[in-house]
Structure formats: C-alpha cells, structure tokens
C-alpha cells in the first residue's frame, strides 16, 4: 500500500515557531527599528536612516574588535575540534573507566560562565594563583593583567578548558554509534590506525562535528562573560571582543541606535559564517 504523502506534519512546528517568534524574531525586528532611529526616550525618537550603519561600518574600534573576534574564534576552533576528537578517541569505550571519563569531562560544562572567569582569574594570578605562581617560579614572566600576549593565552586556555569537553562528548557519542562491522572489515583489510580514523571514524563523525563546529563557532563569536570577568577586555583593549564593545555601547553609553546597527551587522556576520560552515560540511551529502 502506498502511504499518502502530505505536508501536514509542518503544523507540528507551529508551537516552536510561536515561541521563537516571541523570543527571537520580534526582538530582532525591534532591534532593526532601533537601528534606524535616534532614540532619546520612549516618546522622543527621530528617523535617521542609514546614518548609524555608516558610523559603525567606519568605526576603527569596531574593526579592531572584529579582527580580534575572528582570530579568537578561529583559534578556538583550530584547537578545540582536533583536541576534542583526540580526547574522544583515547577514551575507553566501555567499563568503569568510561564512566569516570564522562563524569570528568562533563564537569567543566556544569560550571557557570562567570565562575569559570573567576576561577581562571584567581588561578592565573602570580601571587596567590597556582598557575600564575608556578609559571613565574619556572622563570617565565607571566602576568595576564599587564601583558596582552599572556591575556590572550589565558583567555584561550580558559575557553579550551571549558569547552573542549563538549566537542569530546559529542565525538564520543558519534564514535560509539559506529557499528563493529566497520572495524571488522577494516581489520580484514589490515587497515592501519590512521586509515581507520581517516576512512571510517572521521566520515562517521561528520554530523556530530558539524554540530560541534557550529556550536563552538557561534558560542565563541558571542563570548562575553568569561573574558569580561577574567581581563575586563584588557590590558588596554587587547582582549575586548565584539560583544563587549557592543555592551559598552548599548548599556554603558546607552546609544541604542548605533548599538542596534552594530547588532544587525554582528548578526549578519554570524549568519553568514554559520551558513558557510553548514553548507561546506553538508553540500556533498546528496552525491
């Protein structure tokens, strides 16, 4: 019997659509409205057209944070994705060891963002922090509050500590989903470990890696709390990322119009890069 085919299942998406409309679409539309007006208070606002966009697009402070943001997100992906795969490959597949590994890996994910910042702020201090003190005792001049390179290193290390687990857990679940038959076939062919990884595990991990890359990209591109607590954007502006610049503008100076324009540009960049990642990783699926 041929099953009737309809599109009625789409109605099931309606509740989600309503929720997303309230939590994302309507606020986003409001931001668009803000971005083309000069707002003084609830009743006094003037239409300014594209003025804020022009100002934002030519603001060197924002160019600098955008460049820093891309370097940061790029480094995060380059470190965390391979490291996460490596950790997942080294984890025991079954037995009590795997449970312990999973628990340990899940721990950093449970720590609230501002607590992560505080942990690393104290951990990295040269006088009372174990990490900073140890480095300085080894003769390495390390001070994340004064040296931009040290600040960058600490922010990156903190992010790697916090989020590599996520990639590792995703990859671990992906690895466990590969049927044993593949490995048996590989053994019959006397495939090397590298060949097993390259032609069995990596292709099978593609879907979880796609989620991992997207989540880590979006999350690191929006990072705010951790560097804010750890370095406050300093020394100077060396670890001021986009969201921190935006917050300063919107909440600190209360420039709703420029901040709105900035948010829209920010949103468009995230949308573009996420779409590029998604397309690059899925466009061969149909072939």
């Amino acid at each position, binding site marked *: 019997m041929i099953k009737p085919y309809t599109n009625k299942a789409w109605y099931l998406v309606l509740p989600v659509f309503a929720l997303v409309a309230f939590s994302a679409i309507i606020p986003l539309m409001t931001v668009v*409205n803000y971005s083309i007006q000069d707002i003084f208070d609830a009743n006094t606002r003037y*239409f300014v*057209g*594209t003025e804020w966009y022009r100002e934002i697009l*030519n603001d060197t402070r924002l160019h600098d944070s955008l460049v820093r943001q891309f370097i940061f997100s790029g480094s995060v992906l380059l470190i965390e994705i391979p490291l996460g795969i490596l950790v997942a490959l080294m984890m025991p597949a079954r037995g009590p060891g795997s449970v312990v590994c999973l628990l340990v890996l899940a721990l950093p994910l449970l720590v609230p963002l501002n607590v992560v910042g505080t942990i690393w702020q104290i951990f990295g201090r040269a006088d009372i922090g174990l990490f900073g003190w140890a480095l300085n005792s080894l003769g390495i001049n390390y001070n994340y509050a004064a040296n931009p390179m040290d600040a960058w290193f600490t922010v990156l290390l903190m992010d790697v500590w916090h989020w590599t687990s996520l990639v590792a857990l995703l990859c671990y679940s992906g690895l466990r989903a590969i049927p044993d038959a593949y490995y048996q076939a590989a053994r019959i062919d006397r495939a090397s470990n590298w060949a097993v990884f390259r032609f069995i595990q990596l292709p099978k991990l593609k879907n979880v890696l796609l989620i991992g890359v997207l989540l880590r990209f979006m999350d690191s591109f929006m990072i705010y709390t951790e560097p804010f607590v750890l370095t406050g954007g300093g020394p100077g502006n060396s670890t001021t990322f986009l969201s921190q610049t935006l917050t300063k503008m919107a909440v600190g100076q209360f420039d709703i119009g420029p901040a709105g324009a900035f948010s829209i540009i920010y949103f468009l960049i995230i949308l573009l890069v996420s779409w590029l990642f998604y397309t690059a990783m899925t466009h061969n699926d149909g072939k």
Partner: protein
Amino acid sequence: MNWMAWTTPSALFFTGIGCILFAMTCWELKSPCVARKGFLPITTTRGDRLFIGLLSSAFIHLGFIGMTELSIWLPFSVAVVWLFIVMKWG
C-alpha cells in the same frame, strides 16, 4: 506596538519580507521545486536561492553604506537585480 519603535521604512521592509515568504509558500504548494545546480557552486532549492540572495543583498547594502556616500536606492536596485539573477540562474 509603540515599544517596538516602528517606523514606516522598517514596517515596509518587514511587510516585504513577509510577502516574499508568503508568495514562496504559495509557489511551493502550487509547483514543488526540485533542487538543481546553476552558476552557484552548490545544488540549491528555490528557498536556498532566496536565502542566499537576501543574505548577499544585506551585505551589498552594507558595502555601499560603508564605502560610499551614494543613495540607498542604488544598492537596493543592485540587490533586486542580483536577487533576480540568483533566483533565476543560481
């Protein structure tokens, strides 16, 4: 609606987007589309091409606003032509 700080241009913009989405839905119901390959390097459906066209249009506008002092209608016309090209041959 005052809290959303509506202006006529932004209302027109969102109405336009809404109309496009509605028209695309009707079109899809009337004649479901088949994914195909045009001049873009990937296989796309009609909706994909609309998304690509709209997103690139946004960047066309930003480019014109950021780099030139020209009227907003110029990038708008470029974007409309570009959207048409992507939808037809993309």
